[in-house]
């Protein structure tokens, strides 16, 4: 039990359950099957977006271009199908490759130049978004094949579970395995913990950085495709609003921006909290002017709580050490 309390995700799980129950107590419709469906749909792509940022946070960097990659992939995906009549699986494949290429560029330039990823991805954010607008001239692609649309709307049998969330759940699981059970994943966290130590151990920094960015690009691309499935159109604006939630969820999940500490499950719960909160704001008809403030306060609270926990642990360690 004591070890459970130590886990980042345990407290968050309690927050999710308690807030869910509290909302349901006041508004029973919250647990209606349709609402659960909506909740899961929103969670689906948000989850991937958060993971795309999380893996970069894991190595102690930031990726501002997550949304731009998602947007570029979204319009490529829909454009390939509409303009070039490419079949869905091939379009998915090409789109994922585009996303990974974008990620590779981010990673390669960052690793080879040694310039902060913040600046590199700020630049590529404008480059990717520029290509997006240059191609589309701000016009959405509408002719999404029925199969894609159906995929975006389908549910698993008679359950309220959207088909759309299946892939994110699988990816989340794979990401958990990756970060916790594979050598590359552990090396990334080691690198995030201490670049110097990692290099002395013999971990190749450019390999770690590039891999992380490629995965981030892949995830951003997946999110872009999912959003197209969901919205049933490929609009150039996709991705514009991802930046804030992409950081909010991992940070609420206890990630440390300096790197080396991320938790896939806690990040997923962070996504759930963000989604539940934005739903609650709609359900309780909170003054729309208030929504912004609320989100900001949430982020601040989350980091303060994490900070406090760490401070406590550090204090414990000091006492333990001196005795």
């Amino acid at each position: 039990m004591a070890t459970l309390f130590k886990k980042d995700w345990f407290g968050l799980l309690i927050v999710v359950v308690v807030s869910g129950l509290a909302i349901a107590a006041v508004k029973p419709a919250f647990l209606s099957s349709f609402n659960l469906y909506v909740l899961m749909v929103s969670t689906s792509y948000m989850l991937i977006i958060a993971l795309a940022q999380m893996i970069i946070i894991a190595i102690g960097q930031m990726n501002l271009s997550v949304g731009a990659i998602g947007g570029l992939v979204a319009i490529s995906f829909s454009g390939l199908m509409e303009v070039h009549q490419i079949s869905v699986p091939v379009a998915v494949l090409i789109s994922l490759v585009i996303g990974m290429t974008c990620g590779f560029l981010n990673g390669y330039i960052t690793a080879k130049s040694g310039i902060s990823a913040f600046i590199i991805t700020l630049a590529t954010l404008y480059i990717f978004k520029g290509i997006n607008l240059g191609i589309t001239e701000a016009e959405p692609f509408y002719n999404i094949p029925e199969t894609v649309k159906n995929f975006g709307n389908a549910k698993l049998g008679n359950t309220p579970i959207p088909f759309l969330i299946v892939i994110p759940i699988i990816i989340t699981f794979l990401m958990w395995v990756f970060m916790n059970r594979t050598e590359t994943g552990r090396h990334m966290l080691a690198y995030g913990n201490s670049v110097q130590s990692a290099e002395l151990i013999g971990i190749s920094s450019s390999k770690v950085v590039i891999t992380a960015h490629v995965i981030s690009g892949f995830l951003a691309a997946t999110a872009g495709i999912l959003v197209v499935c969901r919205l049933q159109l490929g609009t150039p604006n996709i991705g514009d609003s991802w930046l804030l939630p992409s950081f909010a969820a991992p940070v609420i999940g206890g990630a440390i921006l300096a790197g080396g500490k991320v938790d896939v499950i806690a990040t997923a719960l962070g996504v759930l909290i963000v989604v539940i909160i934005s739903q609650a704001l709609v359900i309780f008809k909170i003054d729309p002017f208030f929504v912004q403030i609320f989100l900001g306060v949430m982020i601040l609270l989350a980091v303060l709580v994490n900070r406090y926990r760490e401070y406590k642990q550090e204090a414990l360690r000091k006492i333990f050490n001196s005795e």
Partner: protein
Amino acid sequence: MKSLFSIVASAAVVLSGGAFAGSSDTKVALVPGGPHPYFAAWEKAGQDAVKDFGLGKADYKVPAEWDLSQQNELIESLVGKGYNAVLVFPGDAVGTNKILGELDDAGIPTAALAGCVEQPTKAKMCFGTDTGHSAYLGTKQLIDAMGGKGKIAHFTGFLVDPNTTLRIKAVEKAVEESGGDVEIIQVIADIDAYEPADEKINAFMAAQGAEVDGIVTTAWVPAVVAAQALTNMGDKRIKMVGIDHDEVVLEAIKAGFVHGTMLQNPYGQGYIGSYAMDKIRGGCTFKANAPWKSTAQTDQFIDSGTVFVDVTDVDNYVDAMRGISLEILKTFEGDFLDC
């Protein structure tokens, strides 16, 4: 490399453009607020105006972002380049006035297109949609469709856009006029991006879907997302009135999930706007007794036509809009101008 290519290409465009130049030296710039599909029709409208009225140029120039400063920067560079008439969708109903004033000082006539700037202004006219009125009419249509009673929700765009406040108020006004049988149960704003719009509108549907009888949307993105949501849900009970001509909305009307949409007339705006600019540059002035309309923002308003389209006329809305445009054009000079 790419830039070089673009430069060469654009040089070619400039040259060929020069060859087609008509009798007039009017060079109109049509500047939207930012990249948005709504304005796409302006490009064709400008080209048609050059052909039909013999303008020097009428080019569609889009700011890279929805940002007042970017728009100002673009307009300034266009003037630097020799454009001598500017039609602009105001980046801000108030904030755009300053640059319009400065253009006027430089002898460049301007007009607000599609949306208005607030008076006092140096813009020669506002030719476009009365955003408040359109929202009002849309709500009226919705209330009619709901049989005069029920609960409605209003989805709209960025709160920082003053038009949003106008729209919220207009919807409230229409509801008040219904005499208490209609009630606004929720306003959701700030959803001009697709993902949050999808999240919030669907959350709303889940929580209030059973209670709500009608939805009015007064911004592009919410209209698209709400139409999509209703289509996905297969819900024909809830009546919805959208805005603009996004294909998703039009399809939903055809399929019966959306009652109708408030169409604006972007083509007509660009076409007639360019024409008017040429006339003004040619020495015409607006008549003292021109049949201006008045809106909350300005009393030099000319309606470019707001049309409510439902399932009966959704297929030929383009013709309908063209008809309106020609109608306005026919009487424009006689009604408004002293030449």
